[in-house]
């Protein structure tokens, strides 16, 4: 199991998901209401390290963060 947390304006509580790669996680999230519409513009971190690799492996206990468009300053 991995934990997916949704940052900023997505405003969803964390989810537990079964997935071996980011690609599999994408499949699992693509029909989740209130989440799917953010996937096209969100970046991803695994255990707080940013990644853009859909092949990135996930293991039990990993935390994946979904980061929607930002505007600091």
């Amino acid at each position: 199991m991995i934990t997916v947390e949704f940052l900023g304006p997505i405003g969803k509580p964390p989810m537990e998901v079964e997935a071996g790669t980011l690609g599999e996680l994408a499949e699992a999230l693509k029909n989740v209401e209130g989440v799917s519409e953010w996937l096209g513009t969100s970046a991803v971190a695994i255990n707080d390290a940013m990644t853009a690799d859909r092949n990135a492996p996930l293991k039990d206990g990993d935390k994946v963060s979904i980061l929607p468009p930002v505007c600091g300053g």
Partner: protein
Amino acid sequence: MELYNGSLDVKTIFGRWLDEHQQSNYGAYIPFVGIIREEGGIEALSFDIYEPILRTWFEGWQARAAERGAIVKFAHAVGDVPVHTSSYISAVFSPQRRVALELIDAFVEDFKANAPIWKYDVIDGKRIYAEDRSTPMEGAGVLAGSQKGEELGVRN
């Protein structure tokens, strides 16, 4: 890296950073002070921050600045920041003027584009995501069907 609840005390932060490097022999100190503009009927802006990734982002910048003999600093507000007060201060200290001017520009722009911070308008006490002013971070879309990774033969 300093995070504060609500508006920044600009003068105190500016002065403390100056004092810290009084004897460091830097020739240029350039702060960038961001102030909340009154526009669109807002009473404040409000900010969420994801601190672990912000810290990593900032460590990358500290290393980049160090390669040029400079240092970077920033302070940012969390939560509500009323109009005409400050949400954000970045600064560069550098021996050289040119390095300082180039770094403050690049640092402030990358902060805007890639620091994990989310902005909301506060109107009539309600918090509304500033979607029109927000930018997808580097690598955004990795979980979407249209993501570029697919072109590289990654299974969907």
